[in-house]
């Protein structure tokens, strides 16, 4: 029986075209793009072609606004720390939310020791923040607002256009962590009005270990790697050209297919959400019904623990992700799930199901069947379930 991957938020398989492009790049033996001779120039041309492909996906004004990085984590670190270092003389206050990725949270925590203060805003029960709260949190010392476009645990999409407008009026730099959005939902940096945007290649079926940071022309940011003048003097170090070529190809295909991809993924998600209540009761859906990623469902299955569900589903041939404290090894339940108001018990039983373009409607049906079996087995073992039944 084929193994079905329903964990497309952690990574995605490479598109066949991406594999071909990367294999061709390996065969080609590219030189260092910074070298001045013919072989170097050939590598530089391949690099710049990929930059154009990526710029096209996010509708950047110029490919020069794309900085290649090692992935979403580096992009987030670069945006937050790079802006703080370059603009700390203007103010030392940053606004963010309670549900950011650790790449942002921990970067901000690092800055606190350098005298920065951070206002972290709460979100509603579907994980959405309020632009009014952002406006109120801003002070005359605020230099940066850093807010994610979509959350990797709930899939909820934030009202970034409104937040961008507020930031622009107050001349505050606005960074969007769009690692889980770019290549999955149409994303236009100009229409949104973003100053900095983090994204990752493996979100849109490109290779892992490569990503990008969009830096709008005119935004003051320091590199966090010191060394050479690569990437328009924004990111030192010889570029990961093989990965970047793969990312460029994936970006071009994502741009071409974005609407069909969106509709296809949303079809799978809608089917799942429609049929889930017919197989299991007492499940909380944490994903926003409208403003959310087309492929992601966060479901808190009451009375069971996520790692057990994940392990049993693995035995049944399905790969899903869980945010239970036990599975992540973090002792505590996910900060995102607690921030949207889940109890510890419900947070422990939360699965993240993320469909991909390699999934089919048949996969969804089979998954629902297995999910029912697994959850029923685990609820039969659970002391919480019996108690709830008695109470009810």
């Amino acid at each position, binding site marked *: 029986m084929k193994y079905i991957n329903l964990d497309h938020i952690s990574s995605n398989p490479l598109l066949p075209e991406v594999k071909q492009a990367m294999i061709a790049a390996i065969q080609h033996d590219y030189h260092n793009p910074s070298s001045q001779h013919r072989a170097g120039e050939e590598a530089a041309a391949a690099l710049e072609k990929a930059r154009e492909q990526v710029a096209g996906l996010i509708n950047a004004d110029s490919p020069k606004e794309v900085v290649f990085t090692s992935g979403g984590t580096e992009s987030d670190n670069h945006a937050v720390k790079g802006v703080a270092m370059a603009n700390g003389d203007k103010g030392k206050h940053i606004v963010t939310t309670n549900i950011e990725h650790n790449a942002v949270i921990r970067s901000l925590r690092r800055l606190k020791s350098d005298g920065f203060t951070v206002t972290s805003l709460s979100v509603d029960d579907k994980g959405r923040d309020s632009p009014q709260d952002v406006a109120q949190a801003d002070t005359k010392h605020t230099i940066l607002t850093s807010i994610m476009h979509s959350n990797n645990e709930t899939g909820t999409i934030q009202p970034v256009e409104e937040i961008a407008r507020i930031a622009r009026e107050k001349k505050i730099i606005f960074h969007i962590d769009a690692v889980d959005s770019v290549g999955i939902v149409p994303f236009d940096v100009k229409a949104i009005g973003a100053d900095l945007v983090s994204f990752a290649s493996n979100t849109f079926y490109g290779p892992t270990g490569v990503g990008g940071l969009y830096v709008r022309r005119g935004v003051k940011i320091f590199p966090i790697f010191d060394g050479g003048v690569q990437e328009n003097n924004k990111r030192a170090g010889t570029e990961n050209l093989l990965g970047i070529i793969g990312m460029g190809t994936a970006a071009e295909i994502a741009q071409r297919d974005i609407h069909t991809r969106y509709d296809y993924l949303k079809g799978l998600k809608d089917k799942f959400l429609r049929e889930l209540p017919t197989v299991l009761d007492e499940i909380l859906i944490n994903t926003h019904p409208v403003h959310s990623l087309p492929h992601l469902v966060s479901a808190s299955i009451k009375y069971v623990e996520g*790692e057990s569900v994940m*392990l049993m589903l693995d035995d049944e041939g399905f790969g899903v992700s869980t945010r239970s404290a036990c599975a992540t090894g*973090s002792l505590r339940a996910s900060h995102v799930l607690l921030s949207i108001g889940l109890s510890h018990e419900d947070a422990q039983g939360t699965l993240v199901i993320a469909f991909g373009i390699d999934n089919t409607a048949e996969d969804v049906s089979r998954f629902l069947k297995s999910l029912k079996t697994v959850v029923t087995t685990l609820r039969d073992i659970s002391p919480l379930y019996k108690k709830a039944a008695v109470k009810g």
Partner: protein
Amino acid sequence: MMYNKVVMDHFRNPRNVGTIEDADGVGEVGNPLCGDMMTIYLRIRDERIDDIKFQTFGCGSAIAVSSMLTEIAKGKNLAEARKITNKDVAEALEGLPKNKLHCSNLGADALQMAIKDYEDRKAGITRPILKRKDEHEHSHGDKCYCPYCDVEIDDGVTFCDACQHDLKEEH
């Protein structure tokens, strides 16, 4: 796979799952805050564990620990059963991943509580019906351990002094 074959076998095919009606002793430990809860039911005949059942809310390790514990305890007289430790259970499972060792600390504690419950009842000590504590309170015998270095830590701490790891996001 992070678990060995013995652990996976007990997780996939847990032994002695369920409850015992009119149990002679019941022990409950754990807290969803730590990720796990376990209830042990005992039927005692002639000071011997005639039957034992469990219910567990928890990860793969917690379920395997519960299952193994019941296998070890079943048939033992109370004097022997009192000697069963968490370490015995972890060893019978041929080891648990380091960050899962705290799960193994539930099993024997629940058993000892159930034996205590039996003895209390026999001695005519009446107690309120066992009930789960509030979220932010730990039941007796329940401890939290740092997932990075396994040092025992207090509930609510946000930083492990021993290994300098953050344990909770601060905002």
